[in-house]
């Protein structure tokens, strides 16, 4: 029934693709007129044709495709007899689509222009530029300063804001306003490499992609990224991570000489030691079974589980040793290392002088006692000045009563026994004069407890003298050696300090300290590129085996050898524990179980720190 001939060239108008309009009658599903709309979109078919005048008559001009010339013909005045209401031409589909697109584009531009300008009164608001919430860790930093805290051009005027598009806007430098790293701060691993790697720089945002929501992980870095520089291919921890180094993780010597093997295998279990006088048998029993008896489990969140304090774990067995070993300053008759310092005499010189003593002339020792009997404070000050060092007189002789030493010195010159109260002399702590435990008349200092401040400054002074080059040149080496031996003697040394702290007081390990006596627990070696937390591991590893699962005691290790060496280096240190094996880690850290990517245990940055904290940035309104 569809007769396409009806729309042939002569029967129908040709559809005009270049025209913007089409007949409005077609929109009402009527047949469009043969004229169609004009170029301006006005109806062209209000009449059947435009009659043409030839001579004195008008003729119909309707073409065949419009139905041919009409029978009625034009009216006498020349108008067409077939008038009809004009239609409202409509846009053709293509034009309508173009108009739609144009309107959409204008609306979008208007929306961007409008919303981009709404904000905090500056040129650009944040509604249509904010690519997402900052991570939780950073969101607090921009509360006051806003976007400009990272994006310098944000508050600029329009021209310079647009101009910023043609300049470099890497925000890495603004990251360094708050974050600190080892130099080079933008170099790979903040580490100075040899060769080509040292020339490279990296932008912070290459790894730390912000504006990805409060929960975004800013620190993730893929294995492939690490593998790009690290020559050894690494796709999984189990097969390709190198075995941990020897002595891992105990490669740095302890500052405190504590032999785990001796304590766990002998002192805590052998009845000979456990039942000895001044021993805490109950504690020893506990400590032999549980590492956490001595190690503070509360610090498990960190890299290491530190030992508890002296008072908590050592005092029970070792306090009496501290209290039982006095610092002998001088005696009534014999030479001591400290009087050697005062008088500048070696022990052999003192003995020679003693042998040659002819009763008529006073030995230096006797002169010293006489002077002390006369004006002890003046004499001690002069000795202090002679010795030098960084410790003050007040620190060294804190609590010393000059009357005590004056009276003692007088007694000793007259070859009398000085006694101010028998047992009281022994039981009390601090500065004492009179008969000591060796039945000698002496001036001495007795520690009351661990970390006695007077004992500590004396220890530090005496070791300082040996290390101070200017003093060492002036003083006889034998005198200084005698002093050193006095301090570090494990069996007889004052306060028994050298027994445990010998290494900490004398080590010259640049990596762990700066020539200062190290009394405290040194802790693990600082590893900038690795991290480990005991916390999540403690109960996951075989609970029945406790810490021993990883920290296996090496009973064969010669732990004491390091502490016995005079010129030791860090490499000489032998740990009480076997090196931890990777095999323990791969029980869990493997594909399909727990994470095994590089950043699980390794830090990218070297010595990462912060120089601004949230409290400094946030400005609270002033109180009124």
């Amino acid at each position: 029934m569809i007769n396409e001939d009806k729309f042939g060239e002569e029967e129908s108008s040709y559809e005009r693709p270049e025209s913007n309009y089409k007949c409005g009658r077609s929109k009402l599903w009527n047949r469009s007129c043969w004229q169609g709309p004009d170029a301006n979109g006005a109806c062209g078919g209000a009449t059947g044709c435009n009659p043409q005048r030839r001579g004195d008559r008008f003729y119909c001009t309707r073409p065949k495709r419009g139905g041919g010339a009409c029978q009625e013909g034009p009216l006498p005045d020349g108008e067409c007899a077939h008038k009809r209401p004009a239609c409202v031409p409509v846009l053709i589909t293509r034009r309508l689509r173009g108009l739609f697109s144009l309107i959409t584009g204008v609306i979008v531009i208007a929306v961007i222009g409008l919303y981009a300008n709404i904000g905090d009164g500056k040129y650009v608001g944040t509604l249509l530029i904010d690519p997402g919430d900052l991570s939780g860790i950073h969101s607090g930093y921009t509360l006051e300063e806003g976007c400009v805290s990272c994006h310098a051009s944000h508050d600029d005027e329009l021209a310079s804001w647009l101009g910023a598009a043609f300049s470099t806007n890497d925000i890495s430098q603004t990251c360094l306003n708050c974050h600190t790293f080892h130099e080079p701060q933008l170099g790979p691993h903040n580490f100075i490499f040899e060769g080509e790697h040292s020339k490279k720089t990296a932008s912070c945002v290459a790894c730390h992609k912000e504006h990805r929501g409060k929960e975004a992980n800013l620190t993730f870095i893929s294995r492939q990224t690490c593998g790009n520089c690290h020559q050894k291919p690494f796709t999984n921890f189990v097969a390709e991570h190198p075995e941990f180094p020897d002595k891992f993780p105990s490669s740095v010597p302890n500052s405190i000489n504590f032999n785990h093997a001796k304590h766990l295998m002998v002192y805590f279990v052998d009845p000979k030691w456990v039942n000895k006088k001044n021993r805490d048998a109950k504690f020893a029993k506990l400590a032999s079974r549980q590492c956490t008896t001595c190690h503070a489990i509360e610090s498990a969140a960190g890299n290491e589980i530190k030992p508890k304090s002296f008072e908590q774990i050592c005092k029970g067995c070792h306090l009496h040793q501290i209290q039982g070993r006095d610092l002998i300053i001088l005696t009534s008759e014999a030479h001591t290392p400290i009087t050697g310092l005062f008088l500048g005499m070696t022990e052999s010189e003192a003995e020679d002088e003693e042998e040659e003593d002819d009763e008529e002339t006073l030995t230096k020792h006797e002169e010293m006692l006489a002077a002390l009997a006369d004006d002890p404070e003046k004499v001690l000050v002069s000795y202090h000045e002679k010795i030098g060092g960084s410790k003050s007189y007040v620190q060294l002789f804190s609590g010393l009563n000059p009357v005590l030493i004056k009276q003692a010195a007088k007694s000793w010159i007259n070859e009398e026994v000085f006694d101010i109260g028998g047992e009281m002399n022994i039981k009390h702590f601090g500065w004492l004069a009179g008969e000591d435990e060796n039945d000698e008349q002496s001036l001495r200092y007795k520690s009351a407890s661990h970390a006695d401040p007077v004992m500590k400054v004396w220890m530090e002074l005496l070791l300082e003298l040996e290390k101070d080059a200017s003093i060492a040149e002036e003083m006889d080496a034998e005198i200084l050696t005698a002093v050193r031996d006095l301090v570090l003697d494990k069996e007889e040394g004052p306060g028994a300090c050298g027994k445990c702290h010998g290494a900490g007081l004398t080590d010259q390990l640049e990596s762990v300290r700066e020539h200062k006596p190290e009394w405290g627990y040194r802790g693990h070696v600082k590893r900038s590129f690795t991290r480990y937390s005991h916390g999540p591991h403690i109960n996951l590893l075989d609970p029945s085996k406790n810490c021993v699962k990883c920290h296996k005691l090496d009973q064969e290790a010669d732990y004491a050898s390091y502490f016995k060496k005079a010129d030791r280096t860090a490499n000489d240190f032998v740990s009480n524990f076997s090196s931890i094996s990777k095999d323990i880690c791969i029980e869990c850290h493997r594909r399909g179980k727990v994470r095994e990517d590089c950043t699980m245990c390794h830090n990218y940055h070297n010595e990462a720190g912060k120089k601004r904290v949230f409290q400094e940035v946030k400005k609270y309104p002033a109180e009124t």
Partner: protein
Amino acid sequence: MSGKIDVLSHIKSIYKNTNVLIISATALLLLLLISYLRHIDNNLGKSEIISGYTLFFLILLLMSFRIRKYLSVIPLFKVQYWTKIHLIAGISGVLIFFVHTEVLWPKGLYEQIMTSLFYMTVLSGLLGYIMQRIFPARLTDSGIEIIFERIPDQLAEIRKEVESIILDCTDNTKSDTLARHYLETLDWYFMRPRFFLNHIRGGRQGQHWIVHQFTSVKRYLNNAEIEYLNKLLMHAHSKNQVDFHYALQGCMKAWLFFHIPVAIALLIFVLWHLLLINIYSV
């Protein structure tokens, strides 16, 4: 030996196929691009700058398809090739989009708007492509060809003929049964295209309607009237075919009313994004 030759000739025939060549080349280019981006990432570089600009130029390439239509007088290859390039560039764009954003749904408002526009453009494009692949075959199966712009004229012509038949019937049979049925029922059908959605779905609701309406009136007609009714029935079926063409051709034009404006909105947001990135980040 002959088996080997068959395989070779088969492979040759495959590679003679332009589509396979274009798709293979595109896949290779994408692989190279992605491995290059990975290389940049692994060197702590900003791969998103490369992927972003690649995506931007792909969007411009996709947009140029529209410009090609304006420049029909210039022999810039066949539209068939442009369509293929448009399709392949579009699919590549989706892949690069995910490489660039690394997420399905971003966090910020303007990026969410931009992503929505991207998704809408892609989905409408895919829908359009599917229609362009399916509908022409269905239209050919209908057995007639109708220019979309002439459909109103076709309908008017059918309506004119149908009304002429009704008038003849009334004059010659002196019965107005068929005329009244036309005015009360069939006029609605012949007035404009009907059953639009059903035609798109490939349903036959139009035909059922015709059969129902013509059967219901047939029992009230005498033999002379039935002859006119049969003529009407033929016109009704013709109109149903026109309706079918209107529905399918209309869809093939209408989807661009969504696809192009959304694509333009996307382009504007992309330019805005480009400006912001250069001001704030690069």
